[in-house]
């Protein structure tokens, strides 16, 4: 049995965990459910030895673990898969796995590591990258699978997964659940951290709910109704209703992608993509990761140049009026060791607005920061808080806020709510809907079908760099799943 007792952990003025008790038994999948910032990741880090608590202790089968020692936690059999992958991006995947539990005995040999990994991966139905592939060139979901594999290589008694499904494609989910059930059958403990109610109810044996650093429901049944769980997670706040969604745009074209081509190493990544965006509408682009979405976003952000075709702005639109919110926010969108207001000023349009001659108007920029904190409900002490101190949901709110502050005509958003909890998702969705209702054009690129079906007027599917518009009759999760899998391309 894994037990954490009276765990308290402070970060400066933030009380991340406040006397938390947590218990999970051998042979169960235990969901740890909570809003963003509830303290789930901190609790995981304390259990895995990565963070030292201010007080309290962790025991495994009655033996107390040395606080703040990842070595000892691993030795005792506790392995964690982190929310943002803890991987060595510049190394090959084999080297990453060799730093885990693979190929630990005998001579150091990466081929032996690869063979051991392949054996485990085929048991689990996971696919491995080609030999010697460097991680930074692999997709996010591939990286998460590698981290999962690395954690399993320790043959852990306790496996803690921090929001693993937020980066898995819907098609990978079934296999993933099967894997967890196998671990449970072997008598291991799986702690599954999530903010998705439905998931926790479907897969877990018991659920513990955290809210603002406190346990508000301990080891309750997964039969607990969704509404009740939502109340526990959010407190008095009921989950926000979907706002009125504008369907059918104003017809005013703002951006035209005309027969766009991107060819790399002889492979076509974007293959004759034609798409028109008009104001007053959210246009959806559904697809499984790695079908050209990232590259399309980079083309639109002008980080890359197309091999053919064109990106045309309507007469009244300027390039600066396209705001892009990329998916990998820690890498592409925010500079984590800058403050909140400095991150706002990373946007050239905003920087211009707060510059007098060659002087930065820091006071005004701070004021914008304070305004953004209030308007987008960002949980931060002040505009001077570092982006690194914000939780995932708050970082995403900051990115959306920055895009909106520019007063753009077009927003390109890629997997914008990945990893966000209910409240943050609803806030971000509402911001997009309000933007569209006010006449803006949105391209929402996502692999989350629920989100796309709820928000989008027109919906396209992308597969292997080609896109296709869906008919209203095709807009069911089953049919869209098939289309995303490339049943047409």
């Amino acid at each position, binding site marked *: 049995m894994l037990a954490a007792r009276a765990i308290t952990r402070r970060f400066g003025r933030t009380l991340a965990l406040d006397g938390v008790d947590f218990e999970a038994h051998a042979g169960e999948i235990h969901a740890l459910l909570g809003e963003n910032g509830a303290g789930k990741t901190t609790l995981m*880090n304390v259990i*895995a030895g*990565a*963070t*030292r608590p201010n007080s309290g202790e962790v025991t495994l089968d009655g033996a107390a673990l040395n606080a*703040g020692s*990842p*070595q000892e936690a*691993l*030795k005792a059999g506790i392995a*964690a898969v*982190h929310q943002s992958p*803890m*991987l*060595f*991006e*510049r*190394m090959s995947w084999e*080297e990453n796995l*060799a*730093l*885990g539990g693979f190929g630990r005995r005998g001579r*150091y040999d990466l081929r032996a590591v690869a063979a051991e990994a392949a054996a485990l991966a085929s048991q689990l139905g996971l696919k491995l990258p080609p030999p010697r592939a460097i991680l930074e060139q692999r997709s996010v979901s591939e990286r998460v699978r590698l981290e999962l594999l690395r954690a399993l290589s320790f043959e852990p008694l306790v496996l803690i997964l921090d929001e693993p499904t937020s980066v898995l494609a819907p098609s990978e989910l079934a296999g993933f659940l099967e894997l967890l059930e196998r671990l449970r059958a072997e008598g291991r403990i799986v702690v599954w951290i999530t903010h998705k109610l439905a998931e926790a109810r479907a897969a877990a044996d018991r659920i513990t709910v955290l809210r603002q650093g406190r346990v508000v429901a301990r080891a309750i049944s997964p039969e607990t109704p969704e509404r009740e769980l939502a109340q526990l997670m959010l407190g008095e706040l009921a989950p926000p209703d979907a706002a009125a969604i504008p369907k059918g745009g104003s017809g005013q074209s703002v951006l035209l992608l005309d027969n766009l081509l991107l060819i790399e190493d002889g492979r076509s990544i974007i293959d004759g993509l034609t798409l028109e965006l008009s104001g007053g509408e959210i246009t959806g682009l559904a697809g499984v990761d790695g079908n050209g979405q990232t590259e399309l976003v980079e083309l639109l952000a002008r980080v890359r140049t197309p091999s053919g075709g064109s990106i045309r702005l309507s007469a009244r639109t300027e390039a600066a009026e396209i705001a892009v919110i990329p998916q990998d926010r820690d890498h592409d969108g925010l500079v984590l060791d800058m403050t909140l207001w400095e991150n706002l000023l990373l946007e050239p349009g905003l920087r211009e607005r707060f510059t007098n001659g060659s002087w930065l108007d820091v006071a005004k920029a701070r004021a914008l920061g304070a305004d953004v904190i209030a308007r987008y409900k960002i949980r931060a002490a002040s505009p001077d808080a570092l982006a690194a101190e914000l939780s995932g949901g708050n970082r995403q709110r900051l990115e959306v806020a920055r895009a909106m502050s520019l007063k753009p005509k077009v927003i390109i958003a890629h997997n914008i709510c990945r990893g966000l909890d209910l409240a943050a998702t609803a806030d971000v969705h509402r911001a997009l809907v309000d933007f569209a209702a006010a006449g803006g054009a949105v391209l929402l690129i996502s692999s989350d079908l629920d989100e796309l079906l709820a928000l989008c007027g027109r919906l396209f599917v992308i597969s292997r760099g080609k896109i296709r518009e869906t008919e209203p009759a095709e807009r069911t999760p089953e049919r869209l799943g098939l289309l995303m899998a490339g049943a047409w391309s």
Partner: protein
Amino acid sequence: MLEAFLTSTMTMATPILLAALGELMVEESGLINIGIEGAMLSGAFFALAAAYFGGSTVLGLAAGIGSGIAINAIFALMVVNLAVNQVVAGTALDILALGLTGVFYRKFFGVTGSSFMVKSMARLPLGPLANIPLLGRAFFDHNALVYFSFALVPVVAYMLRRTRYGLRLRAAGERPDAADALGLDVYRLRWQALIVSGALTGLAGAFLTLAYANTFVENISAGRGFVALSVVILGRWSSWGLAAASILFGAAMALQFAMQALGTAIPYQLFLALPYALTVIVLATVGGQVAAPSALGEPYSRS
């Protein structure tokens, strides 16, 4: 003439290569040690002092190694345990070593300026290889440290790329937080790299006084530690690249002697500046962000 140039190239390359190989390990573990110049200088001083008063080259080498380790241990304490800014700590040690060795030298050896010579390290010709025309004398008739430094190149390459230990060291330099989460002791790995590097840098300093100048003058390292830093960049963080870059810098220094000896009309100070100019050009053009360890120079402390 050419033979003398090649011989001198190898001699000049040796201390740079020794220091650069040590720095390579340190940088792979995620630290940048500007104090390397100070470690080399104190290695040079204490090696000479021990060899002069103890009358033994071996004693001198040991003292050089010991003082290099001591300087790096201070650096390790500051940057690994106390997370002091690495550039600040390194610069402080450089200044400290320059001041201390200067003061000690005047104190121990007097201010008369009369030089305190030691016997130069013995040459070890490598049997018949040393008799090859032209190349024999140039490459196979040196003292043990020259052979040692070049023999170290494949050893370090193998250690970094082909051993579990090398993988862990690189992990600490790539993402210390992830290395930590996997149970690696980042602090210990970085300490180890700094101790080994201290030994090699101290040895490089000892080479300057015991095998090259056979005496000590103030600031005898004359920027060779900084040259070693740029050799790591020019060599793209690969041991073999480091060897090639060290030879290049060695050749630039040797060329300066050759030109002086030839007595060209060009002022010799220009040739003196050659290696330093090369360093500046390398740092300005090669840059080197692509091959550098990701967490290079960033302070890390456990949460």
